[in-house]
């Protein structure tokens, strides 16, 4: 039963996508929601099996690697799959209102949205280097197309830059895949890890692959495409880009490094990756602080938050793995909430210039609250998922006596506080009577509609993650890399 459930994860959204394309628009909502909702029981079944101690695995077409491709779910991939479901479910709720299925934009949005969901699931289940390439291309192309959906020149320019860099990165990755296949005769990531051995060849091939993945994950200094792409995309798209799409490549990177990266087991490479992460944290935060637009601020915050993931490589301990996986989860939920709230404020105020936010709390309290709650998690303050992640990461850094990392982690959350509170303070500020901002009362209060509910629900979830971390961590513990014990 559990292996079949793996197939449901990919096929349900995919079938829904095909049906949405063919069926008349009025059926879209039902089909899309069904496609997404069906993955929940499937995830549940797989999770139950994994918690029961199984590794859920199915050889597609009965052809096990190296002959064919297998889908496999352990604690790590399942954690990511749950993140996918949660983010997608709430962002879909937002999209029902922001991309109504009968509108032109909605007709373009929903099929690609569903294909994106299917491909993200497929990616998390796969450990085949070439299959990962195909799913990555699928994710990149859908993401790019959805950035451009609004048709604004700035968005399309951002989409174009993302596409070009994304394709280049894919080719680096594919080249490395070719070399690894030549060397090991298999495409299965785990078998590659067993057969690769050490040596210059292995190191350089992996270095090529990692470079490609770093570009797609927007790790400083390869982040240039991200801020505009995430900042200019429509709200739900920004949310899922920051919450999921940049994470999928980091997922592959972590799998590669810890499950197949024996050849890279020297401190220097890990240190360099960690250093990139540290630079990302500081640079991204400062860049976020100086932004003048809300969505760009949130986008640069993503650049910074991705840096924390990179600290896993130098720390390389069970505690660090738990911390980083939990961080990916917490950041995903919180950042999705933040982008949705930002998009709602943009839609309501007509612009996302920060100065326009003055007094926004009086008219749009729900969205300001959602932003603030998500901000609590981003800053790593208790009680939130972000705090639990930061706590564990600090602990891991302390245990390995990485004082530099400790300093960066601490500084990172203080810098995050600067940009989060900058926004909230503006929203709480009182508009001066003479200003052109309309006085409260003359405009309808913020609607408590689906878009606001989606943002607030995700934000609340980001907080709840901090209190209910235990079950999540026990799932993560079932997906620890080889050689790490709970």
């Amino acid at each position, binding site marked *: 039963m559990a292996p079949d459930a793996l197939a449901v994860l990919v096929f349900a959204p995919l079938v829904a996508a095909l049906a949405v394309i063919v069926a008349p628009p009025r059926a879209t909502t039902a089909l899309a929601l069904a496609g997404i909702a069906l993955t929940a029981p499937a995830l549940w079944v797989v999770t139950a099996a994994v918690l029961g101690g199984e590794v859920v695995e199915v050889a597609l077409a009965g052809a096990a690697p190296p002959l064919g491709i297998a889908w496999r779910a352990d604690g790590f991939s399942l954690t990511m799959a749950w993140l996918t479901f949660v983010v997608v479910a709430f962002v879909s709720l937002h999209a029902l209102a922001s991309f109504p299925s009968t509108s032109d934009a909605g007709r373009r949005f929903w099929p690609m949205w569903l294909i994106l969901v299917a491909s993200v699931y497929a990616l998390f289940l796969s450990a085949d280097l070439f299959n990962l390439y195909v799913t990555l291309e699928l994710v990149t192309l859908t993401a790019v197309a959805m950035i451009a959906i609004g048709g604004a020149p700035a968005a399309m320019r951002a989409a174009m830059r993302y596409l070009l860099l994304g394709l280049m990165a894919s080719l680096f990755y594919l080249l490395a895949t070719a070399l690894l296949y030549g060397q090991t005769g298999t495409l299965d990531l785990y078998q590659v890890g067993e057969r690769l051995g050490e040596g210059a060849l292995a190191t350089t091939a992996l270095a090529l692959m990692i470079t490609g993945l770093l570009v797609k994950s927007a790790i400083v200094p390869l982040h240039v495409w991200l801020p505009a792409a995430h900042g200019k995309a429509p709200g739900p798209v920004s949310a899922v880009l920051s919450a999921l799409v940049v994470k999928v490549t980091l997922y592959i990177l972590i799998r590669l490094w810890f499950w197949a990266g024996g050849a890279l087991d020297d401190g220097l490479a890990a240190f360099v990756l960690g250093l990139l992460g540290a630079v990302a944290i500081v640079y991204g935060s400062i860049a976020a602080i100086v932004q003048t637009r809300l969505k760009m601020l949130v986008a640069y915050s993503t650049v910074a938050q991705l840096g924390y993931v990179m600290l896993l490589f130098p720390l390389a301990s069970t505690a660090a793995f*738990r911390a980083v996986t939990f961080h990916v989860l917490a950041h995903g939920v919180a950042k999705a909430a933040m982008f949705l709230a930002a998009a709602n404020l943009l839609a309501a105020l007509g612009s996302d210039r920060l100065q326009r936010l003055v*007094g926004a*709390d*009086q008219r749009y*309290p729900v969205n300001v*609250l959602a932003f603030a709650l998500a901000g*609590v998690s981003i800053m790593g*303050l*208790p*009680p939130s998922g972000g*705090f*639990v992640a930061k*706590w*564990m990461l*600090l*602990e891991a850094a*302390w*245990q390995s006596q990485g004082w530099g990392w*400790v300093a960066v982690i*601490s500084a990172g*959350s*203080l810098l995050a*506080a600067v940009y989060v*509170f900058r926004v909230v*303070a503006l929203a*709480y*500020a*009182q508009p001066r009577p003479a200003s052109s901002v309309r006085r*409260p009362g003359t405009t309808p209060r913020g609607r408590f509609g689906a878009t606001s509910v989606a943002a607030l629900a995700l934000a609340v979830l980001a907080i709840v993650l*901090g*209190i209910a*971390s*235990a079950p999540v*961590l026990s799932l993560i513990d079932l997906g620890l890399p080889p050689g790490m014990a709970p």
Partner: protein
Amino acid sequence: MTPVAIETTLHPLPLVVVLVSLFAGLAIAVLGEHQQRLRTVLNLAAAVVKLALVLWIAILVVGGSVPEFRFALVPGFDLVLRADSVSVLFASLSAALWLVTTVYAIAYLHRSSNRARFFGFFSICVTATMGIAMAGNLLTFFVFYELLTLATWPLVVHTGSRAAVRAGRTYLVYTLGGSALFLLGLIWLYALAGPQDFIAGGSLALVDLDETRALQAIFVLVAIGMGVKAAIVPLHAWLPRAMVAPAPVSALLHAVAVVKAGAFGLVRLVEDVFGASLTSDLGLAQALAVAASITIVYGSIVALLQDDLKKLLAYSTVSQVSYIALGIAVGGALATVGGMVHLVHQGVMKITMFFCAGTFATLLGVTRIDQLDGLARRLPWSAGAFSVAALGMIGLPPLAGFVSKWYLGAGAVATGQLWVVGVLVASTLLNAAYFLPLIARMWLRPAPERWPGGTTPSRLVVFGLVAPALFTAFCTIAFGVLAGSSYSPLDWATEIVRGYVP
């Protein structure tokens, strides 16, 4: 004496008492701006229920049991809510004063905007304070300590004016900076000694650590985190600036929640984590005593220079709260009792003065000291309450402040630290120097032709402004006069200290 782990009983009450105001806060926020009547009912009901629950807990604690609730927050680290006698002291203070402050705030803000947001965060602020009171280990303390920062910030910037937003920024810079150091100290402590719950006499005394430098550093890191909120010089600068907040917020910050949480944290740190003897062995008690003394004198001197009433009160708080730190730093049974009981005494006295200051500003537009002339003729009840509290602050017998100072002084003499007596005398003289002129102006000078401004609200609102101050002024007298009876704050503090100092 070797501290021993206490017997606790699993009980949901500590959690419930924390959650009551959280739910009230959420409900108030959801209700929205216009449900005024329902909001008032909810506010008062939650405050009453909370007070009742705290009383229930107090009865359990008097009966000898220690109710506790715990669950794993992070693997290996529990969130522990536990009601021991120290918790009850702080919890009953904040529950009682919260009720009073709620009444006052409803009256004070009767015309203000954004009241749903205000009372929402107001309630969450008290949730955090209760959590701090009930925290059974430093991690739990930290969690609620941060929540307190987050919940008070919106109250500080409530009016949304430029000055308020700027004050909010200063507040965050200090508190978040302090808590970053606190967190590092916490991580370090746990890395060194493993997760520990609070134990009277010091949880660190149970593990044999030969890490003098590390322990000193940890103490300093955590104490800075506490010291920011306790406004110990030079970490105090946020407090006077936060005076732009509405009067009930100032009352809350100074008497019930923020400043008190910092001082309470220092108590926990010294008595329940390091233990008085280890703190002293590490040379930290002396350092803390010096820092507290400097703060006491500095705060008083600066208060002397103020011409704004609320600023004066703020610097007075800076000075007075450090009595608590001074008491536990001096050590010995008497001084510790003096510090602990001042936790309560300073609360009731200072909140009275803020209530009155807010009332003066609302009804007469009086905000500066030179405007106080003849005020007693116009507002005799408020002026009376203010005067009682001020005299208490100076330490006039038999008011509450006298009891604190007496125990502190006696403790200093008993432990041979005579210089502390000098500090107390200097502080008392300074207190008199800045409070007595106020009292004199109010009662002895003639009233002006016209008051600077103010409004004339309904009688009910005026009652809501004046009655809370009268109640707390009454407490100031009662806690002093009845200090010797059972279950008075002094008696309770003595009981607590029996666990700390044999």
